[in-house]
Structures are given as C-alpha cells and as structure tokens.
C-alpha cells in the first residue's frame, strides 16, 4: 500500500510518512502485477485446484490461468450451486493468498464495501482530548486509527497476495457497480480526509453473479468472462466421487444420470452440483446400494425444492403417484 497525502487535505503528514516507512516503499513506486506468475500452465491450474478438492472443467482452468496472466478480474456467471464461490476460495488456497470477501446484497453501500469512520471511537477521542485545539483533534480523529476498512479497501491495502471475492454482484444495486468499476480500474481508493490508497500488489479479483440482474456492459468489459453451467457427466461423477467417496461406483453413475435427466426437464429450479452432492450424501446415509423407485421418490425432495417440480419430475420419471 502506498498512501498519497491529499493535497491541502486533513491528512496529517506523519501518518502517511509512518505508513510509508513501515512499508518501506518509495512514493514513486508504481503498482505492478505480482512478480512470479500465479500458475505456469492450464494443467498446473487444474492439478493444483484438484489438490484442494476443486475439480475444474477445461473452461474454468483456462480462464483462471488467463486471469492470472492478463491480470484482469474474472467475472463468473452461472446458476446457484455450480461452484462459483468455491472456485474463488480454491484459487486463494492454492495461491497461498488471503481471501477477502465482499458479500453483496440489496442495499450494500460504500460504508460496507469501502470503509467507514469509527464514529463511536471518534467521539470518545473528542471527549478525551478536551484541552486540545479543535484542529489537532480533528486531524487526529480522521487518521488511520479511526478508520474501519471494509473488504475493498482491505484487499487493496494488503501487501501479501490477495484474492478479492466480490460475491453475488448481481444482488447489489446498480450504483454499486460504478464504485466497483472505479476500484477495479485503478486499484486505488481515495479517502478524502486521508489521501489516496493505491494497491502495491493487485489482488486476483473474482466477481460472481447468478444473473439475477444484468450487470452493466462497462463492468463486463473490465473482466474476463466465464460461464459455469452444469458440468459434463464425467466431471460430475468425479466431483461426487471426491465429495462422497463412500458411495458405490454404480450408484454414483446412476445419481449423475438422474440429475442429468432432471436438468433436461425444464423445471422451475434445475438441480445443481450442490444438490447432486447432497443427494449422494443422503443416499449414502440411507444405505441404498441401487436406485429404485421408492428410494428416488422418497429422496426427490433433496434435489428439487419446489412442489410442482417434484410432481412434474415424478410424472416424467414414471414414479408411482406421490
């Protein structure tokens, strides 16, 4: 991190100086991409993600590799439960990076995403320093000590490798996108009372979206785009084997086939990988060793969440009336 004092602002010089000294940085240091590339090849991505328990499709591995190489944020879009969040976590783990997560929701704002002043502490400080001049007090209460950094600022300030996960971006309001765009363009954040914070080391940024809302073209253009859909059968079998190793091979195969058939049915909510894994766990717990009508009928609620989906699926799978 490097803090540029805001010209004519309230930033007290010794604050920025001490910060800069502590970080042993020159004022003219220009942020540059991480020294050693994160991954050496696409295969390297797959292999190392797999070690953490994340099985990447070729598309996922290729895009993650490129995001590292081109230094661009990665926008991951796809239905719920296909492993978008998990992917960011896995990347952080293999990169030995800390994970900073901004969870978006309706109404998330600057004070939740960027920073906030710790008003309570400021008040205490004001009432404690009654003998000081107001100027002194004011300078002091708008210093580092009273700043509450939120995920975006935290991610930019760090000196260590960082994965910044901006999760479920589509849930945030449109205004939030403007802010994200600014941060993702310059990797700097201006705190008016303090100065401008510039990343010395750009975080690896992953944005996710369930496409609940169309993200702006401008934001999309800043990013590499990755759509994660439902996995191919082979990959899904591997995921089930990895997550539920106790389930027999034949049953694993049947589970994946049935889920595939359900996805082709045009349901209100098609089952995702998360549901496949849940179902596999359930079957293991039930001690089932093959799929039959009773087992499927009794556990359909684990995979399908809407009553009318359950009915439709039961009809199409020729289960006896529920």
């Amino acid at each position, binding site marked *: 991190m490097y803090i540029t004092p805001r010209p004519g602002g309230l930033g007290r010089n010794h604050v920025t100086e001490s910060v800069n000294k502590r970080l042993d940085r020159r004022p003219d240091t220009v942020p540059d991409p991480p020294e050693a590339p994160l991954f050496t090849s696409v295969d390297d991505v797959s292999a190392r993600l797999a070690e953490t328990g994340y099985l990447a499709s070729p598309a996922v591995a290729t895009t993650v590799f490129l995001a590292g190489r081109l230094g661009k944020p990665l926008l991951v879009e796809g239905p719920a439960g296909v492993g978008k969040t998990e992917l960011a976590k896995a990347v952080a783990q293999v990169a030995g990076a800390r994970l900073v997560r901004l969870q978006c929701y309706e109404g998330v704002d600057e004070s939740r995403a960027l920073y906030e002043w710790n008003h309570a502490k400021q008040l205490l400080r004001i009432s404690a320093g009654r003998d000081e001049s107001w100027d002194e007090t004011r300078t002091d209460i708008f210093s580092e000590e009273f700043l509450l950094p939120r995920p975006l600022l935290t991610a930019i300030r760090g000196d260590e490798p960082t994965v910044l996960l901006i999760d479920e971006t589509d849930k945030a309001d449109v205004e939030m996108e403007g802010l994200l765009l600014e941060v993702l363009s310059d990797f700097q954040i201006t705190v008016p009372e303090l100065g401008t914070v510039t990343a010395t080391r750009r975080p690896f940024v992953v944005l996710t979206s369930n496409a609940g809302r169309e993200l702006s073209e401008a934001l*999309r253009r800043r990013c*590499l785009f990755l759509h994660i859909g439902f996995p191919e059968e082979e990959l899904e079998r591997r995921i089930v084997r990895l997550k539920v190793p106790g389930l027999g091979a034949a049953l694993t195969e049947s589970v994946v086939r049935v889920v595939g058939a359900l996805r082709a049915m045009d349901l209100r909510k098609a089952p995702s990988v998360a549901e496949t894994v849940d179902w596999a766990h359930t079957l293991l717990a039930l001690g089932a060793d093959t799929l039959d009508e009773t087992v499927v009928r009794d556990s359909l609620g684990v995979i399908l969440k809407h009553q009318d989906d359950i009915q439709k699926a039961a009809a199409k799978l020729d289960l006896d009336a529920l």
Partner: protein
Amino acid sequence: MTEVADRITGLVGALRAHGVRIGTGESVDAARAVEALGLTDRELLREGLAATLLHGPGQRAVFDPVFDLYFPRAVGGLEGSGPDRDALRDRLAEALAADDQAMMARLAAEAVDGMGGYGSSPGSDGFSAYQTLERLRPQTLLARVRADVRGRDGGGADFADRLLDDEIRRRIEAFRRMVGTEARRRVAERRGRDEIARRGVLPTADRVDFLFAGRDQLAELRRAVQPLARKLATRLAARRRRAARGTVDLRRTLRSSLSTGGVPMRPVLRRRRPVRPELVLLCDVSGSVSGFSDFTMLLVQALHDQFSKVRVFAFVNRLDEVTGLLGHGRADPDGLSARIRAEATLTGWHGSSDYGVALGEFAERYVDAVGPRTTVFVLGDARTNMSDPNLAAVREVARRARRVYWLNPEPRAQWGTGDSAAPAYADLAEMHECRTARQLGALIARLLPV
C-alpha cells in the same frame, strides 16, 4: 503469428457481424490469450478466446460455430476409404453406445466427406449436412444402440435405465450438430470462411424471425424468457428511478432550507407517486403468429410485478380472457398455447383469424379493462382475411387508454400487402415492426410505461 492474427481478426469480424460487441481492448486481450495458451490445444484456445471476447452467456451459441470455422479441427477432406454407408452406421452405433465423442466427431467428418458432397463430381459444388444426415439416418440407430448398451451393462435392472432412450437421443442430437459443423467447415474451405461465418451460422435465438422459427428455436426462446425479463426489469427500474428523480419540489426545498438560514442548499426532488401502470395485452394466437404471441405473453407474465395489473386476452376470430391461464405456478411454457386453445373460446365458425370481430368483442365485453392508466399492446400481423377491420373498435379502445401500441411480427415492407390491414390500424395505434426477441426486448424497454 501473422496468420493467427489474421484469423483472430476474421473471427472478431464475423462475431461482430452477428451482433457481438467487441472493442479493440478485447481483441488485444484475445491475442495475448493466444500467446499465453499456445496453439497446440484447440479446446483451450476456444475457451481462452471465449473468455476474452464474450461478455455474456447468450453469445456462446454463435461463438462456437464461428470458432470452428476459423480454427478448424482439420483441413481438407479425408484420404482413401470410400463411403460405405453400412460400415459407417455400424461404427456410429458403437460410438453412440460408448458415448465416445472423439469417435463421433471423426465419423461426422467421414460421413460429410463420403455422403455430403454434391455437384457434378461429389463435393465440387459444396457439402450438405442435410444430405449427409438423410443418407446416414442416425436417428434410426436408437433401438440398436439401446440394445447394445443394455447388453453391455447386463440387463436393465437399474432405475436409471429408464433414462436411456433420452440419453441416446441427446447423443444423436450431438452427432447431428457435429455433422453441421463439419459441413460448414468444408463449404468454408471452398467458398471462403468469412462469408460462411456470417451467413451459414444460425443467428442467436433472439435474432431469429418469429415467423420462421422452428420448434427447437421456439423452445430455446422460451427458455430465454426469464433472463430477458430480468434484464428488462433492471432497465425499467433504472428508467423508473430516473423518472422519479425528475423535478425539484420547490416547496419542500424551501422548507428544508430553513436550517441553512433560508439558503436553499439542497434541492429536494419531487417523488413520483408510486403507482404502477396497468397493462392489457390483446394477442392474436392463430397459427401463423402464435410463436410470437406465446413468447410475448410469457415475457409479460414474467414481468408482472412491474405492473399494478396485467390482463391478457387471446383471440383468433373470437376473444377470451386468458390471464388466469398465465398465472403463477401454471405457466408451463411448453404447454401454454395448447392450454389456451383448449380452455379459451377463441374460434367461432371457422379457424382463421378475424381481427374485426375479435376487436369488436373486446370493445363490447371488456372495455372496462381499459382506463386512463392502461397501456394496451395489440400483438398480431393485422391480416384480416379480407373481413372488416372494425376500426371503430380500435378507436374506442385508443380513446379510453393511456396509450395503444401495436406490435407486428411482419417486416414493414409487407404491411398493407394482400389482406393486411396494418396501415389502417397504424393510423390509430402506434405500430412497430417486431420480428425477433431482440427487437421485442428493445421495444418493451422503450415503450413500457414506468
């Protein structure tokens, strides 16, 4: 590398011609991606180019076939082996049973090479996927593949076995697509890649003409309803915010300025009354335009919470309210038109559309549905089968409504030809050409009241 650069340029040009917006920044990223990935693995290249050039999932359907032309799996035809149809079918059945995609792709190439060529000598004029598939008839392999798989797995005791037929159908469908890709590649070698990439690749579903969309495309369109509705809802919300921000409320501005000694520091903006508009839809659901009407009805249903009230009427030569059939939980998109036809009274003596009678019935029976807050959309080609267009009924509806729009799925050039009463109706209601889902989305975003 220049050859590769040329290909990327060609690929980008073709994608742009299909409406994918690609800036120079993305092209530069694409070139860097190619450099980082190398050219040895075609599938990695595909993913890398898609990641850098595309911005949304809908574009992928256009990207893949275009990519296949600019970065083909192979060049030229195959050596040796003449076309032995039966041998090819045997090998295809085997590959389908094993779900061996690499083998299927190879067989697609062999099939196009051996059976797809036409002209004075085979292939001299081009290659046809249609001809290849007509001769090979992969769909007739279903029973054989099923028996093959069952024999292999030993019996069909497992529950998942009942899914087998559908699974095999999907594999056959995948093979048919491979044949399409291969035929396009071979034609492109002969006639120039750029031209085929622009004309031989199917447009994205949202650019398909409603009047010519096939069953598959209509099904794909129906799946696109929810995403399109979400996109429109976002845009409408933005428009609503803009409208709400609107004007300065002088009285409140002055009142709030009391705290600053009467100096108006912050203008207070007038809040618009949060009354949502009412919508009435009149849909021609007769054969020729039913794809268009279905799609629009589903879209409006998906947008229902943008309105305080939505009422939908369907007609052929009689008119009936179908709002209830679109209700929540009942909107099974595939069965919609069948249900409307089964449950509503839409035809009288004959089965062809009669705008005059239907509109008259609306003006007579349901005119109370229309008030000063109502926006009315009429959907249809305005082809009256030579009967009286009943302009008086439209005039009456227009008089009562806030606005009346007419969306016509026919190209503007055809309005007024033959039995089309489009120009007469267009005098009374603002008429727009609406041939594709893309146009519909743009129109709705623009015309819907907020």
